[in-house]
């Protein structure tokens, strides 16, 4: 982490700066261009004009993980893809957030019993912030997930020393 990240005392001015930074981060989440299976179709619908994710500042999918701070994992992650998903998450700049979209990514979905090659939930590979269930989820559900994530990001302690957030950041690998 940076020199000042989670290193300052938890007092009012620091909290105010945290709130400002969190507001900025939450209002401009840049998702990564990433789609695996059928859930990606719904995700594209969310980006497109009818649902227009850009209203929430998250409608600019970046072509590289270096520029993105949110990865939506939409679709069945099989064993071969799992390595790639992990590497993509590794290559994202911090702070980075993960939305697991769809039943397969949340816990195996229809493949939970007989799927010999399906990773039963992407949380086994990367730490997930928001789970969006559904097969596939409606675009509104994904938007709800992004808004929930936005609440989390806004509340996160950036500079203040806060035990709970520090624990979350450790779990996230940051």
């Amino acid at each position, binding site marked *: *982490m940076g020199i000042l990240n989670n290193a300052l005392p938890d007092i009012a001015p620091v909290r105010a700066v945290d709130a400002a930074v969190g507001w900025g981060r939450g209002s401009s989440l840049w998702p990564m261009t990433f789609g695996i299976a059928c859930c990606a179709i719904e995700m594209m619908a969310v980006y497109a004009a009818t649902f227009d994710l850009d209203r929430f500042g998250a409608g600019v999918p970046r072509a590289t993980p270096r520029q993105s701070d949110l990865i939506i994992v939409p679709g069945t992650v099989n064993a071969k893809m799992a390595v790639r998903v992990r590497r993509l998450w590794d290559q994202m700049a*911090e702070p980075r957030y993960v939305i697991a979209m769809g039943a397969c990514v949340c816990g195996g979905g229809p493949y939970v019993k007989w799927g010999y090659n399906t990773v039963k939930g992407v949380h086994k590979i990367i730490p997930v912030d928001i789970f969006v269930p559904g097969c596939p989820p409606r675009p509104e559900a994904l938007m709800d997930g992004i808004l929930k994530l936005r609440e989390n990001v806004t509340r996160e302690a950036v500079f203040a020393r806060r035990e709970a957030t520090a624990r979350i950041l450790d779990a996230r690998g*940051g």
Partner: protein
Amino acid sequence: MFLSYHAVLVFLITGMAMVCTPMILGVLFRPRNPYPAKTMAYECAEDPVGDAQIRFDMRFYSAALIFIIFDVEIAFMFPWALVFQGFHDRWLALAEGVAFIAILFLGLVYVWVKGDVDWVKTFRHRRRVQG
């Protein structure tokens, strides 16, 4: 005497501060956590193949330079054609345009004679040696 340039000094300091301050702030604020998997080259999550600093065929360089002749020519022809109607001395405007094209055409003739238009140069060279 030099005091009359104090505005330049102020501009210089302000300019340097506007560059340096965000960089220093970034060092203080940004999370920094490099590790091998994060810093490796991005190849859509595949293992990177080879190096980014590869050798490139020099013929593309001359092809790009020749392309400039046509590209810039056309780019300047459009505004010239637009103002041509309203020009008071159209013969002069036409002469200027023709002179411009002629100069660039001379460049084309030059590269043609030099053999830069030929993609495969070795054959031409060999022919010249034999003849």
